């Protein structure tokens, strides 16, 4: 829109900044408060009078959480499940997204429509049969089994987002490569994928974050510590073992640190992919 001209516009700019600041406080304030809480002594947290600023900062909560509970195991489990989920999606979904983007085959629109219908499936509807299915195959309460379950709702999303990124890569480059003697496979790997590299990274990060955050499926499909992921573990500690606030806050901060860092790095490309995919829907 036109640059600010009249006094009315300068007022609007001020209002815009006010709105942006208010929203930022609304969004980050609670997170920062939790961070602050995680660095306070437990005694300062549960006082009758809310202590806004701690008298001193301490990493006590983090240390105790890490050493006195099974939090490390939970984190490792989550890492494993997330890694496996991303691997499965990348291996099977990338080529599928490429096929959707580049080829027009019978049933293409039906399949893409099918994706939209799949999104409407309630998680609960799928969890029950998945529970039975995984139990029969012996993959219940198993990290790999959990990864397979995650791909059930993450793979369609992965293919959809990545297709959007592939669509943005011009097809002429592959035609030129093939005239130069490359096979379709070669064109795909040597030309398109490097161009869509940003999209690939953004989509993979998106899937990784979703897998890392997942609660419902993990709750239903894991029963023991061996494969439990951190969301389930943390919530369990709160509910059944009355985890003190300080350690809870510390646990939360530990687990969202990778999410925030990853998000800040790839947010620009991720935004492009989500909007491209959702708009086409």
């Amino acid at each position, binding site marked *: 829109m*036109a*640059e600010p*001209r*009249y006094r009315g516009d300068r007022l609007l700019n001020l209002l815009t900044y006010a709105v942006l600041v208010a929203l930022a406080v609304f969004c980050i304030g609670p997170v920062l408060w939790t961070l602050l809480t995680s660095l306070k002594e437990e005694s300062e947290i549960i006082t009758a009078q809310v202590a806004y600023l701690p008298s001193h900062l301490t990493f006590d909560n983090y240390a105790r959480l890490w050493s006195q509970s099974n939090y490390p195991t939970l984190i490792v489990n989550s890492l494993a499940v997330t890694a496996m989920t991303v691997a499965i999606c990348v291996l099977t979904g990338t080529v599928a997204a490429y096929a959707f983007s580049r080829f027009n085959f019978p049933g293409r629109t039906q399949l893409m429509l099918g994706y939209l219908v799949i999104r409407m499936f309630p998680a609960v509807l799928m969890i029950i049969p998945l529970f039975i299915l995984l139990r029969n195959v012996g993959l219940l309460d198993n990290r790999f089994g959990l990864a397979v379950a995650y791909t059930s709702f993450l793979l369609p999303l992965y293919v959809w987002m990545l297709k959007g990124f592939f669509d943005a890569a011009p097809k002429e480059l592959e035609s030129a490569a093939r005239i130069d003697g490359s096979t379709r496979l070669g064109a795909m790997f040597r030309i398109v994928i490097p161009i869509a590299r940003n999209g690939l990274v953004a989509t993979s990060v998106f899937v990784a974050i979703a897998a890392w955050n997942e609660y419902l499926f993990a709750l239903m499909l894991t029963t023991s510590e061996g494969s439990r992921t951190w969301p389930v573990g943390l919530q369990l500690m709160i509910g059944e073992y009355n985890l003190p606030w300080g350690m809870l806050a510390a646990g939360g901060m530990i687990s969202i640190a990778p999410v925030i860092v990853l998000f800040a790095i790839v947010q620009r490309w991720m935004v492009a992919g989500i909007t491209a995919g959702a708009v086409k829907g």
Partner: protein
Amino acid sequence: MATLSLRGVRKRFGTLEVLSNIDLDLEESGFLVLLGPSGCGKSTLLSIIAGLEEASGGDVLIGGRRVNDVHPKDRNIAMVFQSYALYPTMPVARNIGFGLEMRKVARPDREAAVQRAAELLQVNHLLERRPGQLSGGQRQRVAMGRAIVRDPDLFLFDEPLSNLDAKLRVEMRTEIKRLHERLKTTIVYVTHDQVEAMTLGTRVAVMKGGVIQQIADPQTIYEKPANTFVAGFIGSPAMNFLAGTLEVEAGTAVLRHASGALRLPGLTEGTGAAGKPVLLGIRPESLSLGSGAGAALSGTVDVVEPTGPDTHVLLDVGGQQVTARLGPRTGLVHGDEVTLAVDTAAVSLFDPETGLRL
């Protein structure tokens, strides 16, 4: 209708000076064309006149009133955009009448005005359609209808014909000229197409780099360009520039150039530069086959381009390229040696360093 005056208008973006010291006056019912290549600042100047952008300095006067601090909607102007900017979710009738609607004009008056404007532009059968259902030419007409319906003092056109194909462009150009003659509106028109400028404007302001190079009526700009930029920008094929030294021999000016001397008996201006290097500007149509009254150029034919009504012949004259516009059947081919007569009354002299007219 009102007049437009710009006094010392300047525009700066950070450290970049986009418009420098723009001074111009437009009389009532005049048609001013702002002509120039991309980036010369013409669209920015139009935005400043409209009030969509603020000038960094100088005054903008519409109808004698200083409007620098006046909101666009209160300047009594209308604008037609290159992209037409029709509201896609509204039918054509509402598009045209939108300005009236915003000014709370009563519905019957509004509808009557819309009907009049639509009839004038022959789009009254499209009033119920959406812009998406119209062709490019139809959208153009609707955009113009939206502009004329409020009967404003000043009309602003921002390259309105650029998005049309060649044939449609010629049709719409005539349409705009007809509208101007009929409604006697005051118009400022931005374009990079010099044919549009020549055919439409009563005054043309040629701009480059944010500076007005020359402002005059089209014929003056064509015959007496103020500098080499204007000379080269207007006219197609472009004016030829022959480098040489000016001498005066026996009361007649003579140009000594690389492959000979050219007598210029009809030359009336610029003779004060005798003895100095000059650029002689010769338009292609000033050259004809034959040797004339001693004012002739000889050269070797390089390329022959038949256009139908004439032939463009590119010659090599002593190392410099000269284009001549000759009749349809010349019989010339590459390599021919040919002599062309020069109409010395129609030439221009320029200083090779400043580019200014002598």
